[in-house]
C-alpha cells in the first residue's frame, strides 16, 4: 500500500483537537501527552482559562456589594487558584514520585493547573446564573433582615457551585493521575496528598485575600487593613467554641 504524501501528514499533525471539550470530558488520551510535555501554548491556555473562568465568577459574586467589589473579586478568585498552584508546585512535584507517580515539576504543575482550569470552566458557566440570582435578591442596601437572608442565600449558592466545580475538577484530575500512574492506588495517594497541601495553602490565601462579597458596614476595599491577622483555622476554631459555649 503506498504511503500518503508527507505534505498531508504534516498538515494533519498541526490539527489539534479542541482542548476545552477534552478538559471537560476528562479525555485522558488527549490530555496526558500535553501534561507530560506541556508547551507554551498549553501553559497560556490553562492560565487563561483559570483567569477568565474564575474571574467571571468573581465579578458575578462581587456584584452584590457593587462599586469596585466585582472587579476586586474578579481579580482575587483567579489569584487564589494561581497562587495555590504555584505556591505548592514544588511540594506537589516532590510528593508525586515519593508516592509512586513518576512525573516532574512541570508535569505536576500542569496537572494541578488543568484541574483548576476545569473548575474555572464550570464557574464561568455558573457566572450568569449567579449574576441573575443576585439581581433578584434584595440588595445590600435593603433592610437588615432582608439583607441577611440575601447574604445567606448567596453564601449557600457559593458553597454548592464551588463544591461542584471543585469536585468535578478533582475527579478529572484523579482520572488523569490514574492514567499517568497506571494504578488506582497511586492515583488516590497522590490526589489526597496534593489535595491536603492545596487545601492548607488555599484556605490561607483565601483568608488573606478577603473580602469577596463585601460588607454593608465596611467600605469597598481590595484587602482588609490587616490581611495577615488571624487565619482560617483559628476562626473556625473560635466560632466552633462560641457555638459550644453558648449552649
Amino acid at each position, binding site marked *: *500500500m*503506498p504511503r*500518503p504524501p508527507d505534505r*498531508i*501528514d504534516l498538515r*494533519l*499533525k498541526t*490539527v489539534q*483537537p479542541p482542548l*476545552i*471539550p477534552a478538559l*471537560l*470530558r476528562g479525555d485522558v*488520551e*488527549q490530555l496526558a*501527552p500535553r501534561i507530560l510535555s506541556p508547551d507554551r501554548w498549553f501553559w497560556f491556555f490553562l492560565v487563561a482559562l483559570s483567569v477568565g473562568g474564575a474571574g467571571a465568577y468573581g465579578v458575578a459574586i462581587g456584584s452584590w456589594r457593587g462599586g469596585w467589589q466585582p472587579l476586586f473579586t474578579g481579580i482575587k478568585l483567579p489569584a487564589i487558584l494561581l497562587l495555590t498552584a504555584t505556591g505548592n508546585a514544588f511540594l506537589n512535584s516532590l510528593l508525586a514520585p515519593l508516592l509512586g507517580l513518576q512525573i516532574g515539576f512541570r508535569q505536576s504543575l500542569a496537572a494541578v493547573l488543568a484541574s483548576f482550569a476545569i473548575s474555572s*470552566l*464550570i464557574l*464561568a*458557566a*455558573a*457566572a*450568569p*446564573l449567579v449574576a*441573575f*440570582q443576585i*439581581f*433578584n*435578591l*434584595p*440588595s445590600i442596601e435593603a433592610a437588615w433582615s432582608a439583607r441577611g437572608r440575601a447574604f445567606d442565600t448567596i453564601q449557600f449558592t457559593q458553597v454548592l457551585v464551588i463544591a461542584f466545580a471543585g469536585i*468535578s475538577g478533582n475527579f478529572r484530575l484523579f482520572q488523569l493521575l490514574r492514567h499517568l500512574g497506571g494504578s488506582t492506588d497511586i492515583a488516590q495517594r497522590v490526589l489526597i496528598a496534593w489535595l491536603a497541601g492545596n487545601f492548607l495553602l488555599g484556605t490561607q490565601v483565601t483568608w488573606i485575600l478577603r473580602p469577596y462579597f463585601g460588607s454593608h458596614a465596611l467600605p469597598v476595599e481590595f484587602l482588609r487593613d490587616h490581611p495577615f491577622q488571624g487565619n482560617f483555622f483559628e476562626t473556625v476554631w473560635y466560632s466552633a467554641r462560641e457555638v459550644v459555649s453558648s449552649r
Partner: protein
Amino acid sequence: MTPTPPPIPGQYPDPAPSPIQPPPPPKHLIGQLLRNPRALVDGTGPDAGIPALIGLTLLGAIIYGLVIGSFARGDLLWLAPLKLVGGLLLSGIICTPSLYVLSVMGGADLRPRQLGIVLGGCLALTTLLMLSFAPVAWVFSESSSSPGFVGFMHWSLWLLSATFGLRLGRACLQALGARYPGSFIAWSIIFLLVTFQMATALRPWLGNSEKPFASEKMSFLSHWSQVLSEKPAGAK
C-alpha cells in the same frame, strides 16, 4: 483508488458516515421536531435550522403571550407577549454556558451550531406545544377571575410543554454521544428554576399595575405563595 491514511495518534479519528438523516427543509421543521428530533443535530445539513427554530419560538411565545395578556387586558395585552419573548430568550442566554459545560461533561461532542440547535429545539418544541394549548388556556382564563388559578394553569402548561421540549434536548444530546443523562437532567432543573425566577422578575403577568414591571425583588417561591393566597375578585 486513493488509500486512506491511518489515523494519527492523539487526534480525533475521521467521523464515520452518520446514520442520521440529513436535516429537513424548514417547511418540515415541525414534523421533525415531533417525530425525528435526532435529524436536527446532523451537521451535514444547511444552516437554516437555527433561524427557523428561533422563528418558531417567537411565533409560539407571541401568540401564547397574547393569551396570558387577555386575562387582565389593558397594557398587558401587548406587554405579556413582549415579556414572554424576552424572558424566554434571556433564560436561554443565561443557561447556554451551563448547557455547554454540562453536556460536554456528560460526553456529548457539541459544537456551537449544535448547541444552538439543541437549545433552539428545546425552546421551539416547548412554545409549539404551548401554542397548541392556547385555545384551552384562553377558555379557562376567560371564565376565571382568580389570578392564582390562571397562574397555576399557565405554570402547569409550561411545565408540561417544557418536559417535552427538554426530552427533545436529551434525545439530541444522546445522538451527539452523551452517555450520562444526569448532567442534562441537572441542566434541565437549572433551566426550569431560571424560567420560574425570570417570570417572577418580569411580573406582573395577570394583574393590572401602573408600572410594567414590579420594583420589589422577590423569589419565585415567595411570589407564588403570595399569589395563591389572593382571593378572586368575583366570577367573570
